[in-house]
Structure formats: structure tokens, C-alpha cells
């Protein structure tokens, strides 16, 4: 690593030294540090004892790795990041599952988490490190047709363009990801004309306009990172839903542009009537041991240094939070009002429930469930429990559960399909249908071989039939849950040929395989790559958590 700064600063220091020698007026001159090496070439010693800080944070922090590597050299603190979504992280902290497992949190925002007073009490030293507003990135080829000045676009103009069918977009699931939640808050504020923090009345008032708006959402995702990857994939010729815009952090949009062809470049629009920003507060858990607290202090001090802040803004396109550091070259500096975030859990959760059950486009979700002989016992029990949670069978009503208006298909398979069950969750009073899904889940029984590819082909045909019959437009996806390797029927090559022969609309249906038991990772990764899905790992995390996480993609 080249270290210019100290040298340049050293010249300044000589000047300071001269004034110190002559006048001694400008504060006390620092004394020589006993540890400074006279050679000037050796890197300075770390500022403290080595420590590995266990941090739970958002996956978009992956771009911070080079800076964290530098931080490790300078401070001795290694950051071990475990990734999860902002809202899932909030639940982890609220439930007390973070205490003792992690030392610190690093999410785009703590606002949702802090709405739970008990959870807020577990946090210490919340230190914003960098900032990025949630913005609308509009595809260049689409922008020219809209006749907008990108610096002067309001939420209602965006709403009009979407309402008139001129603009489609992708956005993360607000029940899982802070960028989606922030956008939803911005939209609800703008469409209701709220004059302050959102209330239930504002949400109700904005609902008709929001429903129209979300008809234009063609892509959903459980994380802002996958949303960006999915856009990039279709922009570079891969299969998937083509969208005219992405709702994401300004930083993610600008970083994504580095890898996009010209016509797919995204122009960042920060609506003039206000944005909701992420300020990435690095936060110490009160339960952390004292060594962790010391390491945390050293790390935050390093991250707030001017040179570090400059590097953060130059390399990650996020905005600095330290006065005197200029935002990176790609960031426009005209200010935007910051919209208030709801001040209570009931309002925030009410907004989320309205989105899931009334406002968003409904989903068509198909579960391909392996019930071969090897699933007998605990594995099948775990599967039943995980799916049962999505039906609210345990009395919980999770925002990640099956939604009103959702069409849910279950396929039980081994060496052949054992049965298929289709459920249409109604728009009102969904309890009976959810109970019916749960009773199908509980009827699953194990026995037989494993014919993954045959069953996937069946699944695609089933969805084609459902689409043709309903003639509607829904978020459509397949979840594949298996604990073994395909050892019967069609091969990977057969399935690939089958898939490539499908019409483009059908190819846009992704498969989300779950790695479990003795599942063949290569086979499953191949299926995810081919269909534009994503592989989920239930070997290192619970099946419950994985099924819940996938909801963000459905």
C-alpha cells in the first residue's frame, strides 16, 4: 500500500514545529512519541492489542473489505462480519440472540431496531460511519423517453411515470431490507402528503396511489446486493425480469454502474421532496466484553479519520460523515430534505403488513419438496416446522409469512412426484386457507429416491398452466428443498436443454435451491445460476431462517 499522506503531513508538521519553536502560542506542541520509528518507512504499530470483533451487519458492507483490511493493520482489530438483513438483525437483537454471539452491529440504519425500546437499551456508542440516501436509479435508455431533469424529479413524477406504464422497477422486500423499507416510507410520505412522521391515517390515505405504483414493481429481492446482481445479469444478456429502474442505495447504484454496459447505466435520482438515508451506525452491544469495547473504540476512531473517510467515499460511493471531507466525485452535493422515519412499531409494522397483503403485486410461489427416504425423521420434522411458521401455525403472524392473495403450490417428490396441492390465499380472512396449507405440510411423508430435474420440469409446466389459467401478472418463483443428489430421471444436461427451450417469460422464473443434508452443492448452484435464482445454505443456518429469508425473493 502506498502511504502518501504521512509524508505530506510531515511537511506540514515541520511548519507547525517551526511556529512551536518560535512562539509556542498555538496550543501545546506534541512531544515525540516514544514508539515512533526514526526510519519513517516501517508501518506504524497497531494502536492496540489484536482482537477479532464479531459484527452482525448488512451484506452490502462487502465493499468495505479493503478499508477493514487497512483498519486491521492500523488498529489490530479484525472485523468478522456475519451478514443478515436489517429487519432480521433487529429481530435477532430484540430476541436477545445477539448477546454473547456478537460484539457489535453494523446495519444501514438502527431506526427500525430502536423502535423496540428493550432492544434500544442494548445498544451503546452508535456511531454513524458513512451515509447513503435511498434513491431511484433510472436506466439511461428509459430516462431519455421520460423528459426529466434528473436533478429535479419528485416522487409524484416518478409515481405518474410508473402509473402510466412508462417505468417498471425493482425494489427489495421492505419486510427484510432497509432500502425497500426506506423507499416505502418515502413513497407513503409523498403520496399521502404527510406533513410529519407517518401515521396510520397517512398510510391509509396513500394506499390507492401505492397500489397503482407497486403494479410497476417487476423485481423483488431479500437483499439490496442480489437486486443489483439480478439487474446486472439481465443487462448483460442473462435471463430475468427486465426493469427500467432500481430502488436502491445511491452507493449501490453508482458502484453497479462500474460494471454495466452503456444503455443499462443507471442515473441516480434523489426525489426533490425528500429521501430516507442510511447512516450505517457502527454500534456496540452493551453485552460485549470489555476487550471488545476497547477494540470497538479503536476501530471507530480509525473509520472516522479524515483519510479513511476520504477513501470510503472514493471507493464505496457513500457520503462522508466527518466535517471537512468532500463527498466523492460521483456524488451530487445539492441537499435533499430527510423524511422522517415512523416513530412507532405499530405504524411501521402496519405499513409493512399493508405492503405485503394489499399493496404489492401478489405472488405465485411453488415449493418443490424432497420427501425421499433420507428425509425421514428429524429432517422432515424440521421441514414441517419451517413451512408451518410461514402459515402462522404457531400463532405468530410474521410479515414474512404467506400473504393475502398469494397462490402457493406444494409438490412432494421422491423418484417421482407424489402429489401436488394448489392453494389460493384469499384477500380477506386468510386463516382457513393457511390452515389448509399447514395440514398439507403436515401430511408429508418420506420414502423413495430423488428425481430433482424431472420434478423441476414438472414445476415449470405447472406454473405455465397456472399463468395461462389465471391470465394474471405475479411475482413467480420456485423453491427447491432437497437433502440429496438427483439420482433418477432427467440429468442436469436434460434440464438445461428443457429450460433453454422455454419462452423468455417462463425463463424469468428463478429457482431458489436450499442446500440441506447431503444435498449436492454443485448441482444446486448450477440450477440457481441457470435460472437466475440464488442458493441458500441450510447447513450453516436453520431451515426456519432460510425459508423466512427466501420470502424476500418471492
Amino acid at each position: 500500500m502506498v502511504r502518501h499522506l504521512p509524508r505530506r503531513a510531515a511537511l506540514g508538521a515541520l511548519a507547525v514545529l517551526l511556529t512551536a519553536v518560535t512562539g509556542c502560542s498555538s496550543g501545546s506542541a506534541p512531544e515525540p512519541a516514544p514508539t515512533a520509528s526514526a526510519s519513517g518507512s516501517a508501518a506504524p504499530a497497531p494502536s492496540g492489542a489484536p482482537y477479532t470483533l464479531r459484527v452482525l451487519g448488512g451484506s452490502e458492507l462487502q465493499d468495505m473489505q479493503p478499508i477493514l483490511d487497512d483498519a486491521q493493520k492500523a488498529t489490530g482489530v479484525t472485523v468478522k462480519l456475519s451478514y443478515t438483513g436489517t429487519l432480521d438483525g433487529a429481530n435477532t437483537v430484540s430476541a436477545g440472540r445477539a448477546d454473547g454471539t456478537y460484539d457489535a452491529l453494523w446495519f444501514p440504519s438502527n431506526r427500525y431496531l430502536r423502535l423496540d425500546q428493550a432492544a434500544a437499551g442494548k445498544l451503546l456508542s452508535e456511531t454513524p460511519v458513512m451515509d447513503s440516501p435511498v434513491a431511484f436509479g433510472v436506466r439511461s435508455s428509459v430516462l431519455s423517453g421520460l423528459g426529466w431533469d434528473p436533478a429535479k424529479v419528485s416522487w409524484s413524477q416518478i409515481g405518474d411515470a410508473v402509473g402510466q406504464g412508462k417505468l417498471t422497477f425493482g425494489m427489495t422486500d421492505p419486510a427484510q431490507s432497509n432500502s425497500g423499507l426506506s423507499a416505502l416510507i418515502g413513497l407513503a410520505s409523498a403520496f399521502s402528503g404527510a406533513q410529519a412522521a407517518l401515521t396510520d391515517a397517512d398510510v391509509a390515505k396513500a394506499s390507492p396511489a401505492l397500489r397503482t405504483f407497486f403494479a410497476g414493481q417487476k423485481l423483488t429481492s431479500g437483499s439490496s446486493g442480489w437486486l443489483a446482481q439480478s439487474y446486472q445479469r439481465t443487462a448483460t444478456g442473462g435471463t430475468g425480469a427486465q426493469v427500467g429502474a432500481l430502488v436502491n442505495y445511491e452507493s449501490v447504484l453508482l458502484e453497479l454502474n462500474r460494471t454495466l454496459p452503456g444503455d443499462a447505466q443507471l442515473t441516480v435520482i434523489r426525489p426533490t421532496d425528500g429521501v430516507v438515508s442510511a447512516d450505517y451506525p457502527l454500534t456496540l452491544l452493551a453485552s460485549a466484553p470489555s476487550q471488545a469495547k476497547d477494540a470497538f473504540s479503536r476501530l471507530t476512531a480509525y473509520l472516522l479519520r479524515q483519510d479513511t473517510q476520504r477513501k470510503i467515499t472514493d471507493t464505496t460511493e457513500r457520503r462522508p460523515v466527518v466535517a471537512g471531507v468532500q463527498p466523492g466525485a460521483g456524488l451530487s452535493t445539492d441537499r435533499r430534505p430527510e423524511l422522517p422515519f415512523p416513530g412507532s412499531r405499530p405504524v411501521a409494522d402496519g405499513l409493512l403488513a399493508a405492503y405485503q397483503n394489499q399493496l404489492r403485486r401478489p405472488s405465485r410461489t411453488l415449493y418443490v419438496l424432497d420427501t425421499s427416504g433420507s428425509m425421514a425423521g428429524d429432517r422432515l420434522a424440521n421441514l414441517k416446522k419451517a413451512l408451518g411458521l410461514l402459515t402462522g401455525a404457531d400463532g405468530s403472524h410474521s410479515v414474512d409469512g404467506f400473504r393475502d392473495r398469494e397462490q402457493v403450490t406444494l409438490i412432494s417428490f421422491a423418484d417421482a412426484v407424489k402429489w401436488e396441492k394448489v392453494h389460493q390465499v384469499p384477500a380477506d380472512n386468510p386463516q382457513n386457507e393457511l390452515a389448509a396449507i399447514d395440514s398439507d405440510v403436515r401430511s408429508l411423508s418420506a420414502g423413495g429416491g430423488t428425481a430433482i430435474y424431472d420434478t423441476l420440469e414438472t414445476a415449470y409446466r405447472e406454473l405455465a398452466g397456472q399463468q395461462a389459467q389465471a391470465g394474471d401478472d405475479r411475482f413467480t418463483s420456485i423453491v427447491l428443498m432437497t437433502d440429496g443428489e438427483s439420482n433418477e430421471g432427467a440429468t442436469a444436461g436434460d434440464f438445461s436443454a428443457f429450460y433453454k427451450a422455454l419462452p423468455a417469460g417462463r425463463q424469468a422464473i428463478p429457482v431458489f435451491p436450499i442446500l440441506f443434508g447431503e444435498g449436492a452443492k454443485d448441482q444446486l448452484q448450477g440450477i440457481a445460476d441457470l435460472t437466475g435464482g440464488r442458493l441458500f445454505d441450510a447447513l450453516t443456518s436453520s431451515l426456519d431462517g432460510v425459508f423466512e429469508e427466501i420470502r424476500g425473493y418471492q
Partner: protein
Amino acid sequence: MRRQQLVGILVAFALVAAVAAIVITKTCCGSSPTPAAQTTVTGLIGSEKADFFASPEVQRAFSKLGLTVSVQHAGSWQMKNELKGGSYDFAIPASSVAADSIPTAITTTKVRPFYSPLVVLTTPDVAAFMKQNGLASQKDKVWVMDMQAYWAAASAGTAWTGLPRQENRPAGLSGQIYIATTDPRSSSSASLYLALMSYLGNGQKVVASQSDIDRVGPALQKLMGYQGAMLSSSDQLFRDFVAGTERPLSWTYESEVAEQALAGTLPAGSTVIYPDYDIQSDHTVVELTAKAARVSAALATDPDLVKLEARFGFRPESDPGLLAKDLQQKDNQQFPADLKSLGTSQPPPPTSDLLQQLVNRAVPSGQ
């Protein structure tokens, strides 16, 4: 805080260490005694003091006195809980009221080494719009806010677009008029804001009874409700302002702004408004173990530390004019030399118990 420059300074000094040491010793500053064994003292502080305690110069000044001070930050009202079963030697909340709520076995009079008025941070165009509508005035470059007019507008639910004179309204300035604060359940600056609002809402009388609380409670709840989710600490509020994610008006410590003004890093277009009714933030040391007495004494009387307190934007008790002197040298005319010259009224805050009740009324939990 110009950390990289400090690294440079260290390197430069390493190069000329011998010379420097001799010259400095001869010309002025006196040779520093070799410190005896260092005593490590651990504290919990408000985030507005985080930069001060993290500064290498402050650490060095403590070190000369044989102290190694390590700190974590928490909201002043969070401290009581955080200190339970903890291994802290002292706590420095940002108000005497919060300090009074922290139990300690040490009974000596609490030391207040430095203080800071609370101010409203905004931009010049918003300040001018407020002046046009009688919410603020300016004399000798110092802005003053008419808090009674603010209280009247905010408690009536007036919007920026509902003020009588709409010409020159800054683009994007809309919505209810309110000052964005931190969360008063954890943070001292916001609880002092509520103390001030309760005084104004109570006919300019300090809230002293349950019936006073009942009288002002609903209006306070409305005022805090406008804000939505609140940040936990003033440091966060200020960093968000720096990053450009601002509300029209933010409630913060003069020290946060003054520190940047002194360092020459205050974002262009930052305007400080002094409330004409204001409650000062008294940074008060709560000693929890015998070791802490050395920390309070150092902060109150050590000349190097007092100078540094002013440099980090605070008004030291032993020399309140020092901050203004530093600021005037840097040509920052928007900070008054003497707070008294503004003619602001300083109502005392309610007692610790009543203030906590006010907070609970203004921000009901589980709403």
C-alpha cells in the same frame, strides 16, 4: 480530527526529535515530568464528548498527570442502566439533571468542568425565512430564535407553508414546523429540549407538579410525534447533518458546531441559532470510584485540558471566555463571545423525577 496530520507530526518529530525536544524545553513549555506509573480509569460519557476524549492530545494531557482514560459513549439517560454491574469509574452525562439520577456512593459535590448552551442548527436560507416570519432575528451576526413564537407555531401544528410570509421559502422546506432532536429517553440534549418546551407550555413556569405535567403533556407528545424515529445521540444528529441528511432545524450542542468551526471544517452554510430561552448543558462528572476524583480535578483545573476543552467547543467553567476568544481568532462571528450579551433567559430544568415523567409523557413507550 486531523489524525493523519498528527501521524505526520509524529513522523516529523521522529526525524528531528532530538532538536525539537531541546529547543522546546529551552524556549517555553517547561520539561514535562516523567509520568509515574499510569492509572487506568474507565468512564461512560455522552457522545458529544467522544471526539474530545478520543483526541491524542487529550490522552497525552491525561497521561502527563499519570492517567490513562478509556471511555464508551451512551445517552445520558441510558447511563444509569449501563453502569449497573459495570466496571466504570466515572460517568459524564450532559446535564446536571441526568447526573442527579445516577446513583453513586461518593458524596462529594459533583464537579462541572465545562458547559455548553443548546443551539438550533440550520441553513442560512431557512434562518432568513424564519426571520421574515418573526421566528428569528439577527444582531451583530449572531442569530437568536424567538422560542415563544416557535412554541406557538409548533404546538398549533403550523406548517412551514402555513407561515404568513411565503416569499423566498427555500426549495424543499415543507411539512410541520418542529426542531429535530435526539431521543429524550436516552439523550440529555432532547430531555433538556422537553424541559424548555414544558416551561414555555406551562406559562413560563418550571414544571413542578403532576398537574403541570398533565397540562403540558399532550402538546409535548404531539411535538415529539412529528419527528418520527429519533436518533440515540447528538453526535449522530450532527454527523447526519454533515452528511447532508438534514431536517430544517436540528437541536444540538454549541460544542458540536464550535468544535468544527475551530477546526475549519464546519460545512459551508451551517447556521447556528441561539434560543432566547435556553437551558445549558452542564457536563457533570459523576464519580463512581475513588479513582475518579483525579479525572474531575484534571478536567476542572489542568491548564492543558482546559485549553483543549475550549478547542473542542466547550465553555470551560474556569475560563468561559476562552472558547469565544478561540473562535473570534478564527473569524467565526456567529458565536457570541458572552452568552449573557444575548440576554437569553435560563429557566432551571425540572427535578430529575419530574423530567423523567415529562419524557415518558412526551414519548410514551409501546405507542
